């Protein structure tokens, strides 16, 4: 295996963590922050522009450009906010968590650089409620930075979520942070103009912010030499599913899916065959073994008909029934729909029901057409992409594995005969509010 540059996880390639502020500083920590503070905010943004860094949360929006949309304080004299999205919860994605656990100072250093870039004195880190240990590590690291007088007058508040995938959507996150139900807002106005408390706000993902630190260390132009055109730099790929060595791997953009799954991940275990790959979290279109030489960068994945998304790569071998996969993915979006837009609230539930009918062998030919029609009626008709995610995923399963869906209808049963790797897969049991029904499987 070739050596790959370690940018995000610098200094911890052996899998270790840097949790001691002295150790971090001795290894060159906070030099990027000092460098940034010696620059004007515009110069910091220029470095980001030169780096080509694009958002690592899923939307891949250029980070420098996002910051440049935030008005200058004299143009809009309100407090400016930096909000960091640490609400990682896209199925297949577990990179931000490892970043916060292993290189918390690198992440927090990036927060302060970003705050300087948008001329903000207030940082809010919205961390998902399920991340207990990660919260503790950030809290302790922040305390150490405060003692070391590194915050430079910037307040950093850790705000804990409470279990809602939708709060990963930036406007829902802002609503939640304001003390409301996490439901997306209409855009415009965009957060850059009217975000948190209706004030100028930049919202960035944990990995994006952590990457800001090496961009300043190396200089934007130098960072841009890593990776490929349109997708500069490294990416933390979360590899999971039917693969020998799952885990997070920081690799340059443009590495092939084959290299990631076989050379680095050790391939599919137990001599099984590769059937499908979800390349960027569960909301991205599925690819098949035929796409194995696709390069893992923005443009290549779009050309392959999918998306790099959150770079959460789920490997699926030939034991998996693709209708069951559809059910489980759709159950997730159904459960996480905030209920605000009807096509999503009703549509995700309907999609699950039709898929269940197909799996149970109760579906007629018309049900498959209905499934596609319902997906079509969700797509692009809501305030946020949650419902679209369900539709995109399910449509791609039907498109790539049409014969398998058809076989369920023709045979009147699941062709896997109870042997699928997702057989009996369970929906969330909704402990927080009982609705008076028992889970179906008991």
């Amino acid at each position, binding site marked *: 295996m070739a050596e790959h540059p370690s940018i995000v996880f610098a200094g911890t390639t052996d899998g270790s963590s840097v949790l001691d502020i002295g150790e971090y500083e001795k290894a060159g920590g906070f030099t990027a922050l000092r460098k940034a503070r010696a620059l004007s905010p515009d110069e910091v943004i220029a470095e980001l522009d030169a780096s080509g860094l694009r958002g690592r949360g899923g939307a891949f929006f250029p980070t420098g450009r996002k910051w440049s949309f935030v008005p200058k304080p004299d143009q809009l004299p309100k407090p400016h906010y930096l909000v960091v999205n640490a609400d*990682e*919860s*896209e*199925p*297949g994605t*577990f990179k*931000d*968590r490892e970043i916060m656990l292993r290189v918390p100072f690198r992440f927090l250093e990036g927060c302060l650089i970003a705050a300087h870039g948008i001329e903000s004195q207030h940082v809010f880190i919205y961390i998902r*409620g*399920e991340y*207990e*240990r990660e919260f503790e590590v950030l809290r302790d690291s922040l305390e150490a930075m405060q003692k070391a007088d590194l915050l430079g007058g910037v307040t950093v508040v850790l*705000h*804990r*979520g*409470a*279990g*809602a*995938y939708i709060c990963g959507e930036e406007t829902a996150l802002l609503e*939640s*942070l*304001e*003390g*409301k*139900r*996490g439901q997306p807002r209409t855009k415009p106005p965009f957060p850059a103009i009217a975000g948190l408390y209706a004030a100028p706000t930049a919202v960035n993902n944990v990995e994006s912010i952590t990457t800001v630190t090496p961009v300043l260390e190396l200089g934007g132009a130098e960072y841009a030499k890593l990776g490929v055109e349109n997708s500069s730099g490294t990416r933390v790929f*979360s*590899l*999971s*599913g*039917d693969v020998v060595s*799952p*885990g*997070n791997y920081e690799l340059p953009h443009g590495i092939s899916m084959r290299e990631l799954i076989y050379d680095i991940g050790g391939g599919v275990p137990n001599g099984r065959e590769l059937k499908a790959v979800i390349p960027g979290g*569960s909301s991205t279109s599925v690819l098949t073994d035929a796409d194995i030489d696709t390069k893992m960068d923005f443009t290549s994945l779009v050309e392959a008909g999918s998306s790099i998304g959150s770079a*959460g790569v*789920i490997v*699926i071998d030939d034991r*998996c029934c693709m209708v069951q*996969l559809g059910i*489980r*993915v759709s159950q*997730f979006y159904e*459960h*996480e729909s*905030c209920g605000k837009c009807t096509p999503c609230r009703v549509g995700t539930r309907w999609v699950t029901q039709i898929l269940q009918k197909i799996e149970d062998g109760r579906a007629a030919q018309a049900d498959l057409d209905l499934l596609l029609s319902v997906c079509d009626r969700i797509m692009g008709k809501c305030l946020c992409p949650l419902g679209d995610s369900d539709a995109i995923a399910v449509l791609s399963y039907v498109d790539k594995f049409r014969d398998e869906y058809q076989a369920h209808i023709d045979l009147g049963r699941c062709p896997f005969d109870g042997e699928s*790797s*997702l*057989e009996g*897969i*369970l*929906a*969330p*049991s909704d*402990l*927080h509010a*009982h609705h008076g029904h028992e*889970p179906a*499987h*008991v």
Partner: protein
Amino acid sequence: MSLATEVQKLKKRYPDSLSAVMPALRLAQEENDGWLSPDAIREVADALELTPAYCLSIASFYDQYYLEPVGRTRVEVCTNVSCGLAGAQQVVEAFERELGISAGSTSEDGAYTLGTIECLGGCGWATVVAVNNRHRLRVQAEDVPGIVQELRG
């Protein structure tokens, strides 16, 4: 320190005190055996000068606020795709056998609540099981009897 006093401290973190509703609910839940009773909701409402109905509308939106009593130990198994591929169904069944309760319910003595839960962000270390929000990684069905024995102390 009373909840009201602690909530006053929470309010200071935010430009608008409404933002303190989530941490206040978390705190009230921790101090009320892990769930938000109508009284606990009312206490939060009083401390933040909000209506109980508003606080309930927040609590009912987020999965981690429990509106009914839960066991002293909450066992939540991730059953999303990556954990499912690793055998989360068998892990759930093993917990059901060992704890003698079905997923989505609490044991009669109030000791355990067993649940299935959405992606916990540990897909590469499947199956992930959260025990009172502390994650155990790479759990397999055969590990479950040992885990339950450990929990029973």
